[in-house]
């Protein structure tokens, strides 16, 4: 296991919010400076803990969006209207606030450059966050492993990192990005406009030889559907790593 992942006791640290950037109407990225941050791998997450004055605490996990090469860590959070933590992080939190977190956490759903197999990344909604860390890490490491991102969102305004993905893809022919919008799409839209299905997988997925590495992240039902389609397409389940996001918090 690479440096910084399992060394030392996993303890709570206090970071300081450096910057908050709105990505979409409901999603913001929060850049945090964490003293003595041990480093992380693309795909890992942090646990964030909020404490109220009366002692009440709430805790949620958020994938790290930033590349390991960045000196700050960034989490990207979707505000759920009936959530408890996300409306605080996206709405109340501001620059210079302190935030308690622990990490990095995870050793299964991680990708390290240099890659040795074609990479297929499939994202449902905010499931794109850990996959974006992988894409950013790959770019920072100047790795040219062929990678395709298939990213499902409700509508164009919900697509997180849209401009950055366009910019990265136009500068790098080995990075392919395909979008599908499931609820509404603009006139003249050239991407997919439906839920993931067999045809979309056939269009986008790498051939089964040489064996690709696959990462799928999003709500459980999305992840299970995508995984099944890939297995039907001929992929070995062992090539596919998944991370299910729940609305167990919000």
């Amino acid at each position: 296991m690479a440096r910084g992942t399992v060394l030392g006791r996993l303890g709570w640290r206090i970071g300081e919010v450096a910057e908050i950037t709105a990505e979409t109407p409901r999603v913001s990225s929060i850049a945090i400076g964490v003293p003595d941050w041990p480093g992380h791998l693309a795909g890992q997450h942090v646990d964030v803990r909020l404490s109220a004055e009366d002692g009440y605490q709430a805790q949620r996990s958020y994938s790290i969006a930033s590349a390991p090469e960045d000196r700050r860590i960034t989490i990207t959070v979707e505000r759920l209207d009936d959530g408890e933590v996300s409306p605080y992080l996206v709405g109340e939190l501001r620059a210079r606030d302190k935030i308690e977190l622990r990490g990095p956490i995870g050793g299964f759903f991680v990708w390290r450059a240099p890659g040795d197999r074609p990479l297929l990344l499939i994202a449902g909604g905010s499931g794109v966050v850990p996959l974006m860390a992988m894409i950013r890490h790959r770019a920072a490491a100047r790795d040219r492993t062929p990678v395709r991102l298939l990213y499902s969102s409700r509508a164009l305004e919900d697509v997180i990192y849209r401009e950055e993905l366009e910019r990265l893809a136009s500068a790098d022919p080995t990075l392919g990005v395909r979008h599908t919008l499931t609820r509404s799409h603009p006139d003249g839209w050239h991407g997919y406009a439906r839920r993931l299905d067999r045809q979309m997988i056939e269009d986008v997925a790498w051939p089964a030889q040489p064996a690709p590495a696959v990462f799928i992240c999003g709500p459980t039902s999305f992840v299970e559907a995508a995984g099944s389609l890939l297995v039907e397409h001929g992929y070995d389940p062992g090539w596919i790593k998944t991370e299910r996001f729940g609305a167990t918090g919000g």
Partner: protein
Amino acid sequence: MAFISRGFKGRRRDPDSSSRVPPGQHTVNDFPVLSAGPTPRVDLAKWTFTINGEIDKPKTWTWDQFKNLPTENITVDIHCVTKWSKLDTAWRGVSVDTLMEGVETAAEYVVAFSDGGYTTNMPLDEITDHKAWVVYEYGGAPLHPEHGGPVRLLVPHLYLWKSAKWVRGLTLKNADEPGFWESNGYNNHGDPWREERYWGD
């Protein structure tokens, strides 16, 4: 000094000054769904409810037979060990006393068992004498699977983990046998008014 997140208040927790709310609990207006596994899919044509164990002859009801038993409408407060309480919940079902009519047993304990393998244990006298029901309606409608439908146990004077969802029967026992949560840290008795949450409480 413990770290405080500036401006964080958390979900509004109604102060538990009401005498109806046990210590450490707060009231909620929604009905949280807690689940230790997949929601069982039940075929009512094959569903049965059984009382077995320390009994001369096990008693079994099919769904049709069960629906023909005398029912009661009950409104009770429920208390989950995860600290939420819900007041005035309205249920319809069969009293355990009705199910136990005519049963002769020396058993002092019972284990409720459910589809999916869940179990929970109690002294038998904690579910008799108007203390427990086997319910199939909530809020005037058939009990939803996510809340334990078609049928769940309801034991409102104990923490809600004792109100086994997807219940299929009761096993009468001479010796107490800790159930799914009772064998893994949760209190064997579970009285919310004495805050019997964990082992040793």
